[in-house]
């Protein structure tokens, strides 16, 4: 795929990619934007190549997920070394209510319930419900087997519904 063609394709997917990056970064906007920029640079520089084995969206989401995880690991390690962990937690807790206030009550409830799920359960549910992917596509984006994705989906959905009904 040529660079211009790829640019157009990722521009079309940009809103969905941003939503997925937000999900991978615990709904931290700054981190999500940074991850997305790094992903675009990786793709346009040819460091991440689309080989056509899945849909472009599935592949792009896998790259975003991988980049977000490695960036989060690097950041955590850096903060551990510089003993900034405690300060970061305080900042994050302080910014959460502001972000939640901007969304409606339903969204805030959903986001809170999603935060309480395990990472893979949250990921599969967001890929299926938020991004309208099939469980097979979600499994490919998450680099897990379809069976594992189904289990995460079932358990996650059950817990999410319980959380949301409990919040009501």
């Amino acid at each position: 795929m040529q660079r211009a063609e790829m640019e157009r394709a990722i521009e079309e997917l940009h809103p969905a990619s941003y939503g997925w990056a937000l999900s991978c970064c615990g709904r931290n906007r700054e981190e999500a934007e940074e991850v997305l920029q790094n992903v675009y640079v990786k793709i346009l520089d040819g460091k991440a190549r689309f080989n056509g084995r899945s849909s472009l969206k599935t592949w792009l989401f896998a790259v975003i997920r991988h980049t977000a995880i490695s960036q989060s690991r690097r950041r955590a390690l850096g903060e551990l070394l510089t003993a900034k962990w405690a300060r970061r937690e305080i900042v994050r807790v302080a910014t959460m209510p502001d972000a939640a206030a901007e969304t409606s009550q339903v969204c805030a409830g959903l986001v809170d319930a999603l935060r309480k799920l395990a990472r893979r359960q949250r990921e599969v549910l967001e890929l299926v419900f938020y991004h309208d992917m099939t469980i097979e596509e979600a499994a490919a984006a998450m680099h897990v087997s379809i069976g594992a994705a189904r289990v995460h989906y079932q358990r996650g959905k059950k817990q999410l519904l319980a959380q949301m009904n409990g919040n009501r």
Partner: protein
Amino acid sequence: MNDDLLRQAFAELRRVEAEQAPKFVVPALRVRDHLKPVLRLAFAALLLIIIILSFRRPPEPSITAWKAPTDFLLATPGRELLQSTPDLKGIRR
């Protein structure tokens, strides 16, 4: 709450977050990355030149100009006496 309501809640979240999405900006190619192949080539060429220069043999001296490196050992004290004939005229009668 069933699947449909869950879908609605996610759709609402997607709508809200899509509105907050930053504008798509094409990231410019980093100059450093762009120059990487050129820099690599230049480095390889420099390395090659250094290797060639360090392994190059010095020019061989001419055979007529050659001198044994242990020649100085032959210059022993009193050697000049052996190289000349002693003058015995003075002691003849």
